[in-house]
């Protein structure tokens, strides 16, 4: 029999706080991290709201200028959360432990900072304002910082953490959407279960809110461009789209017996996983997964844990507030959990935290663990029960006292990937 793989350390950062406690208390209090942001002040983007992180930078992480020059927000979040998760587990100080620790991370698209390139490009313009490539190639590309290319590689953030913590185990960087976050957790879990590493960090960080990421999200058609006051309303009949959020989370996974030896008391085991593909509307290209793909992912995750749908207490939905995405997801959930015995409840964190893309599932996983230990589910922000397409299944209004034992977490891509993860309380 395979031993349980459990969470032994965790850390997250969101627009509601750079710690689990801060974020959790804010969620229970119904606070919201989404607001009009300075970045888009003076711009005419049709959506100028986002959920931004503050207070994580090179100073707070005690990084050298040399290190931080090739880092951006996603790297800072990954570094902070990885160090804290290792510390919380008690593994950081154990001789030789880091060397046998693996690292699977999901990292969103990494965008350039215009100022990194403007010097070289501006100096290469001809009299008509067009780029003169001869000028650029002959000399002006050297205006670019020589290590700038490293900052554009998705994997460098993971490698910097590996250097800081001395991690040498199995590893992969997945990208760029939410599904990749669950893939990182699933692969990390399997790596431990198969005995290839004794501990593995599973991580996810989203994209920095910037002109480029906002433009990409708008071009993908996923942002709420209608509600200026209350954008991103998961599962609401009034939903119009999502809002980008910054943040991410890291968990350290280990075999259960190993952390009990260290005197820790595990609360959650990773027990099931399903991954599928199927576009909801191929003609439109980037509409996210179909209800069939979502249903198959959830079913596979439940069955791989040896469970039945009626044993699931809570679904932490992808629930990004998009018109088509939420409908596909709710239809799949409604069909799979339609048995009379199912008392399934539904939650989404995106109304409060924004859409963290690759970072979302790790934050949801850490919140799920807290829901199990605290015996309470925060309310979904921005959606009233009377306006919910999921009816009373959706947790709205006030925090709900319940003791979930089995939680399913969904995470999707805007290209059609659908992943689900099942976690269970262990006592």
């Amino acid at each position, binding site marked *: 029999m395979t031993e349980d793989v459990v969470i032994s350390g965790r850390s997250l950062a969101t627009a509601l706080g750079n710690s689990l406690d801060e974020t959790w208390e804010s969620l229970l209090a119904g606070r919201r991290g989404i607001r009009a942001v300075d970045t888009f002040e003076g711009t005419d983007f049709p959506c100028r709201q986002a959920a931004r992180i503050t207070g994580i930078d090179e100073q707070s992480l005690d990084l050298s200028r040399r290190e931080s020059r090739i880092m951006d927000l996603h790297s800072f979040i990954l570094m902070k959360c990885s160090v804290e998760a290792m510390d919380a587990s008690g593994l950081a100080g154990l001789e030789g432990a880091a060397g046998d620790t693996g690292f699977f991370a999901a990292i969103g698209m990494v965008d*350039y900072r215009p100022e990194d390139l403007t010097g070289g490009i501006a100096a290469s313009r001809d009299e008509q304002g067009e780029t003169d490539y001869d000028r650029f190639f002959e000399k002006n590309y050297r205006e670019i910082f020589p290590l700038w290319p*490293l900052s554009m590689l998705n994997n460098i953030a993971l490698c910097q953490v590996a250097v800081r913590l001395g991690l040498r185990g199995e590893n992969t960087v997945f990208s760029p959407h939410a599904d990749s976050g669950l893939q990182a957790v699933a692969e990390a879990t399997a790596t431990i279960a198969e005995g290839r590493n004794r501990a593995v960090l599973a991580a996810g960080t989203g994209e920095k809110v910037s002109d480029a990421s906002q433009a990409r999200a708008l071009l993908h058609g996923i942002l709420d461009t209608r509600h200026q006051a209350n954008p991103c309303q998961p599962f609401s009949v009034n939903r119009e789209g999502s809002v980008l959020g910054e943040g991410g989370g890291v968990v350290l996974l280990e075999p259960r017996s190993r952390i009990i030896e260290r005197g820790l008391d595990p609360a959650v085991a990773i027990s099931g996983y399903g991954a599928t593909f199927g576009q909801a509307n191929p003609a439109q290209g980037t509409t996210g997964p179909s209800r069939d793909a979502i249903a198959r992912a959830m079913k596979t995750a439940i069955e791989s844990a040896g469970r039945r749908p009626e044993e699931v207490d809570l679904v932490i939905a992808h629930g990004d507030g998009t018109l088509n995405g939420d409908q596909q997801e709710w239809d799949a959930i409604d069909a799979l959990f339609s048995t009379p015995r199912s008392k399934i409840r539904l939650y989404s964190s995106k109304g409060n935290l924004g859409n963290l893309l690759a970072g979302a599932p790790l934050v949801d996983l850490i919140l799920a663990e807290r829901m199990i230990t605290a015996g309470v589910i925060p309310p979904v922000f921005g959606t009233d029960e009377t306006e919910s397409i999921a009816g009373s299944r959706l947790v709205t209004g006030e925090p709900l006292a319940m003791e979930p034992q089995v939680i399913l977490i969904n995470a999707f891509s*805007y290209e059609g990937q659908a992943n689900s993860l099942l976690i269970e309380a262990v006592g």
Partner: protein
Amino acid sequence: MGGIKNRNRRVVVTGLGMATPLGLSVSESWDKALQGISGIGPLNYPDAASAPVQAVGQVSESDWNEIVAAFPEQAATQGEKRTLYALWAARSALDDSGIDAGNSDPGRSGVMLAAGAPINRLEDIGPWIDPEGNFDSRRFSNEFEQVHRESIMRNNTHRPSALVAAHYGLGGPNGTISSACASATQALGLAFRSIQRGESDVMLAGGADSMINPVGLVFFVLLGAANTTRDDPGSACRPFDRKRAGLVMGEGAGVVTLEEEQHALERGARIYGEVTGYGSSMDAHQVTAPDPKGVGAARSMATALSDAGIAPEAVDYINAHGTGTKLNDMAETLAIRNTFGEHANRLMVNSSKPLTGHLLAASGGPEFVFTALSVHQDRVHPTLNLTNPDRKCDLDYVSEGQRQAVIGTALSNSFGFGGQNASIIISKYRQ
């Protein structure tokens, strides 16, 4: 979940596909590789006569036109070349395997592909720089819909794996790996595990990449890793040679069909070999250079050997990462020596990069194809351009020409910028 429930699920290679500077046909590309004909040539890109890099491995214009003709709808709507390369290589791998995607269980077939650094075009920024040299966010916010079709804002790294799955109706696990130059080998390794664990029966795996664009052409020059000499392009990439002068970029894709053994046997598939082991590691040294002692690389190979349950002496051939940079080739040589001990003297080691150029995130794809063909045909292609032996690179690099030898087991290495390493093992299939 959590682990390989049934260790008896064996994974075999049943289809090979490529789109590289050597061509679009696997058999023709393999023939060229054996004969030592390089696909690297002079750069052919608009307005790039002054680019610091002039030797590149490009998919030829005629081959590109053939790809466009094969996928006219995607060519018209999709931005990046790599997405089209992925489609071509995936189609080849499926055709070669004989699998009819339409008649297979779609939920049991998936895709795992590598994707490299997002492309950053000067055109993403240039039009919105104001007279003072600053980026004009306001104007950009009104005009972002005008960004180039290859822009990072229109293309995400998931696009190739999604498009392949959508085109062939593959509804199983689907993922994108972004571990720099280790990506494709990691994609192959994770696809192997997916089948082993019973999550899927068939996986298309490998990678596609292209950075032949204005930013890409200076990318590795800035890092000091590119060959900027004006040597004859065909001899510019010189892995393990004393006069090696840096990597030479290539572009394209390598995708293979991995299949659960019984699934393949039941339909009478041709089997090129069996994937028997996979391992990865991190250098944890520094992100700007590989560990000169090759500790991470050695760990990656040792992990793959352990995963396969074989002794180092069982390996006959290594398809090296072999980039032709000073640091990589030395570190990899040392890592092979430390992993294989005395047996390192009996190993055949080659690099495919002088043939195709460095396909970056995708490099492990075509190199896996060549490794599988070596195991299947007992032939190894030569390492081109190794004419000045380096005393610190002292293995048998098969520099004199193709070689015929029994290859029971082969290993393919891929190492990524930053310090991620991956190794995968293919063995001769025995029922």
